[in-house]
């Protein structure tokens, strides 16, 4: 089984290598037919290994499930990581001189389930991209980066060792950078890519240090060893037998790891890169910035949830961050005009829901929502891509009334928005219900302090309302009302304006249809545990938000319902000026410091070097004046010396 898992990781990796080197080989021809041929070849190179990986991942999940069954009590078959037996395999152990690194993979209920999510979404995106990027000269490298990303994410999911996980974790960051910057001709996209990499990297440094803390304390980087060492917990300061960890160590380690999670999963305060990352092609937003990579952070917390449960402080921090993040992001989503940015902020908000479930102690609910969210958010992004493809603009102010031209997209996106709002019978309804129940239970005495638990619960309910509001707003503004007449830019010479809004090609339509099924039905896997009281409350709250927006919209279908925010609208649209604050607080000082360093290096450090050279020259010039070839001077010196010696001999002799 481990060999199959390794194969599932290796196939997309090799596909990436082959696509990068071989798409245009031989000949390196460019232009027209050569590009088309290269794109076709690259599409095959990309899709076939991804499909094979998908099959392998599904097979692994199936065999694992049939072999071990699922433990009772969990709300979702694949949820609880720690109880389910796992299969591990180690390729080799690398001696570092300190804690060894074991290159190995691990299969358990969690990893096999998430791997299916990753590969299915990746496959859908690969197929969708064939249509979306038809005619793009750089499609071969683009599809190769998606393959590389798939391999990296599978490595994260299957990794048995935290450092192996970290390798995949960072490679995903690189792929995200490369893909956000796919259209790098535009400087703004390039900047967004750099920002995404750097912001997540800040978190990743914390993550790495957290791994150090855990690895050193447990004497191993293997996840199983670390979990085993941690459960053998001892009181603060007293380390017995060297394997158990004090609570302080756990707290430090989990807080550091939380930094990495905040970076990757775009949680406050490191969330600012995600909205900008929408500069990338839409399929990338679906793959990386909705369904998989941003889920990696949540996945890691679930993986190490045993540690987090033991560290009360970390749980409280996580709860507060989640509470602030979910409501803030939802409010920001309510005021955006760019459809993709609405979805981006919505992703931040939904990820915060998962974080909330984790803080409340329910990793099962988090994984459930992770999987349903992966399905419906990927669906929403792919639909948004189809809309943007048809309209030629990201802005909702340029859309409207599209339900007539795009009936398939309209139906699929309606399902997606319903799932986002948590309306029955979509998948989002069931998973959000699990989370709300978990948060509700956390209000009773538990690891969370009362204040944090209440804040979390209040915020979760308020966010349900705001989610209903922004989802309704986006839905209405895209598909209903009238399309405004927009002055199109002057066409290039030799072309004409073509206004031709129609459904996307089949390669784009089919993945949408395929993803609509799990977005609609996946929730029934956990239908048994619905808590009808909470469910009714949340649906009522969501409909309240939706109703408010609908009322605003009905009063004037042409203007933006976001005007109901009143004076706070600009604040929300700018996402509370976090970006500007970071620019003033961090970016500008670093750049100023860099300038200072260059000046210091030139004047002080190198100045000292040059100064020593000048000093040596000056000194030698001084010495030279004593040796100017003037015989009288030499004789004078000689006589003076003799005189001095004579005087000395007389006085001291």
């Amino acid at each position: 089984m481990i060999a199959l898992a390794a194969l599932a990781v290796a196939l997309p990796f090799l596909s990436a290598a082959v696509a990068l080197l071989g798409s245009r080989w031989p000949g390196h021809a460019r232009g027209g037919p050569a590009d088309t041929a290269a794109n076709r070849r690259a599409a095959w190179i990309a899709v076939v290994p991804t499909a094979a990986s998908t099959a392998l991942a599904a097979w692994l999940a199936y065999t694992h499930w049939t072999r071990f069954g699922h433990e009772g009590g969990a709300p979702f078959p694949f949820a609880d990581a720690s109880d389910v037996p796992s299969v591990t395999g180690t390729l080799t152990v690398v001696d570092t001189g300190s804690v060894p690194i074991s290159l190995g993979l691990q299969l358990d209920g969690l990893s096999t389930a998430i791997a299916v999510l990753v590969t299915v979404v990746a496959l859908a995106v690969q197929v969708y991209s064939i249509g979306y990027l038809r005619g793009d000269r750089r499609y071969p490298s683009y599809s190769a980066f998606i393959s590389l990303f798939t391999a990296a994410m599978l490595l994260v999911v299957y990794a048995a060792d935290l450092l192996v996980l970290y390798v995949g974790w960072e490679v995903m960051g690189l792929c995200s950078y490369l893909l956000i910057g796919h259209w790098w001709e535009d400087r703004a996209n390039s900047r967004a890519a750099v920002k995404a990499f750097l912001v997540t990297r800040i978190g990743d440094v914390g993550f790495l240090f957290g791994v150090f803390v855990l690895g050193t304390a447990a004497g191993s980087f293997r996840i199983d060893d670390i979990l085993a060492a941690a459960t053998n917990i001892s009181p603060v300061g007293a380390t017995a037998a060297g394997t158990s960890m004090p609570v302080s160590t756990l707290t430090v380690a989990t807080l550091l790891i939380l930094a990495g999670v905040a970076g990757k999963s775009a949680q406050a305060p490191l969330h600012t890169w995600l909205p900008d990352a929408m500069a990338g092609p839409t399929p990338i937003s679906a793959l990386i910035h909705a369904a998989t990579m941003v889920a990696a952070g949540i996945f890691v917390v679930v993986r190490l949830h045993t540690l987090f449960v033991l560290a009360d402080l970390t749980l409280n921090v996580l709860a507060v961050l989640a509470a602030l993040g979910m409501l803030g992001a939802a409010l920001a989503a309510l005021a955006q005009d760019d459809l993709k940015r609405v979805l981006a902020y919505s992703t931040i908000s939904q990820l915060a829901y998962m974080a909330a479930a984790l803080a409340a102690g329910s990793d099962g609910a988090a994984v459930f929502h992770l999987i349903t969210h992966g399905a419906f958010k990927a669906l929403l992004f792919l639909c948004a891509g189809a809309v943007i493809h048809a309209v030629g603009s990201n802005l909702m102010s340029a859309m409207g009334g599209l339900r007539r031209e795009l009936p398939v997209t309209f139906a699929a996106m309606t399902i997606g928005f319903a799932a986002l709002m948590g309306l029955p019978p979509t998948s989002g309804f069931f998973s959000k219900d699990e989370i709300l129940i978990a948060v509700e239970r956390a209000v009773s005495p538990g690891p969370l302090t009362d204040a944090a638990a209440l804040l979390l619960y209040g915020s979760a309910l308020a966010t349900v309302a705001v989610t209903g509001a922004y989802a309704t707003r986006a839905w209405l503004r895209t598909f209903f009302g009238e399309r405004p007449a927009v002055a199109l830019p002057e066409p290039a010479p030799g072309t004409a304006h073509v206004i031709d809004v129609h459904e996307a090609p089949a390669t784009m339509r089919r993945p949408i249809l395929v993803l609509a099924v799990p977005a609609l039905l996946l929730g029934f896997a956990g239908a048994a545990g619905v808590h009808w009281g909470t469910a009714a409350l949340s649906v009522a709250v969501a409909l309240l938000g939706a109703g408010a927006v609908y009322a605003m919209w009905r009063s004037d279908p042409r203007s933006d319902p976001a005007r109901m925010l009143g004076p706070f609208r600009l604040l929300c649209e700018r996402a509370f000026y976090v970006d500007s604050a970071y620019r003033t607080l961090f970016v500008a000082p670093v750049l100023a410091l860099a300038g200072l360093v260059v000046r210091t290096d030139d004047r002080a450090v190198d100045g000292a070097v040059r100064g020593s050279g000048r000093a040596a020259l000056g000194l030698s010039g001084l010495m030279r004046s004593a040796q100017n070839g003037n015989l009288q001077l030499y004789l004078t010196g000689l006589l003076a010396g003799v005189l001095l010696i004579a005087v000395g001999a007389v006085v001291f002799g």
Partner: protein
Amino acid sequence: MNWLPIALLAVPLAGSAVLLAPLPVDAPARGRLLRLHGLAVSGITFLLAVVLAAGFDHADPARVQFTTDLAWIPGLDLRFHLGVDGISLPLVVLTTLLTFLCFVYLCWGRSDGPGQLLRPRPGGNRPRALVFTLLVLEVGMIGTFLALDLLLFFVFFEIVLIPMYFVIAVWGGRARRAAATKFILYTLLGSVALLVGLLLVWAQTGTLDMVALGGAQGTGMSRAVQIIAFLAIGIGLAVKTPMWPLHTWLPDAHTEAPTVGSVLLAGVLLKMGTYGFARIAIPVLPDGAAAVAPWLGALAVVGIVYGSLACLAQRDLKRMIAYSSIGHMGFVLLGFATLTPVGVNAALFGNIAHGLITGLLFFVAGAVKERYGTADMPTLGGGMLVRLPHLGSVLTFACVASLGLPGLAGFWGEMLALLGAFDPAPGLSRPLFLTFMAVGGLGTVLTAAYFLVMLSRVTHGRPTETVHAPLLAGVKAGVSPGDTAAEAVAGPGDTAAEAVTRPGEAVPESAGRVSADAVDTGTASVRTGGRAGPGGGGTGPGGGGGLRDVRAYEVAAWAPLVGLILLFGLWPKALLLITDPVVRTFVGAP
């Protein structure tokens, strides 16, 4: 097999000696012979190093193998003592590989590509002198890593300086003389300190045998003597490494050196300093190392952050890469400062990784400079991925490797150094080293920042952004120097002029105009401009810095580096397996 180390020194030495003999054939044939000669000699040396690695007993890398121990100057008890173990073996192979790749870069094909200094040109390019210099340089570099006698080490350490001085001073850029002088004076000054330290060790212990000294672990020397000796040796090595604040020779030397000079300087010469720490300073003087380690660590992390910040504000591509070396060598020094096996392993790994990655970076930066005629980033503009997609891709790869992406070689050195700092050797202050670790972690973010910002500036965007209307107008109208626009173009314009004038003997003024045209309209006009320019009649095919994408000789020189970066990144065990046992005996860990 004990003849191998001697052969490794003898082959390049003999190869350079042969070049002294007069060769009675005509110029084209001489050029061909010379290229063949350089390739053959460096290739044989590389093959010998591969044989050495293959014959090396990997089961026992801590044992010094292939030893040769001959009396050299019996009166002074100096011995010609050579050998390899797990620390020196990778460096020997790296040295021969990089030298061979430099020759591949110079000699492959017809040798008329940009950067191939062996191409004939009317003004005289001294191709024979270049081959001679590089081969002598190789002797010194290999000898440094093979020597097991302190003074023999010092001799080889010094031999390297002279050829490198000439490489910079003869084949360098515009300000080459000053850079070369600074390089040799600065490093000679460091060598004096090194020599004093080595002599102090000799005076105290009575032996120059590194193996014996390493085994003795500092017995026979008092703590005070060890500290003084460590300081003296450390300063000597730190100049070479370079450690902040002794680094200022490096940016100048790198910026002015020709491509092969930069590659060898970054890829091998810097490693001699860090190798000295691993081979001499730490094992021979453990008490001194323990006393100085906090300072070494502090200077190392200052170097990391300082180098990164300096990179962030650089305008010149080669200068930026030079400063990035300071940051990376900071990680290597931090690894040493922890005095733990993992830290020293990290340093040795980082050494090799830096040699491969920065070697590649300088190759690419050289290629950029030869093509555009300048390495000034604002002048380069953007859109390299449009104009030169393959070159831009290789540059991206090298930068990503250099910023320490896991899965590529650069990561393991940095990561293990930080891990070493997390848990330093007993006796060192843990909070202090935790601070170092945190600062080092900040440095990795800054490292990523400057590389990505550079990539964004140079490879992204549209190439048309390079049009600077006032600037071009200034040149065309012949505005006198002193005008700001003309000043802005003066630097790059002159460099471009140099690149363009090489084939012929263009008047500087007209060449300046040609280069301005080149910046203006891109590929096509560079070629036509280069050929049509008055006085550019002697332009050979591909001469004049025409913007052609990666060419065969460049692929040949770069592909092995790319492969090794991937190999060590994906399979770090390949290197750690050899170094770890040696390091454990040196640091005295179980």
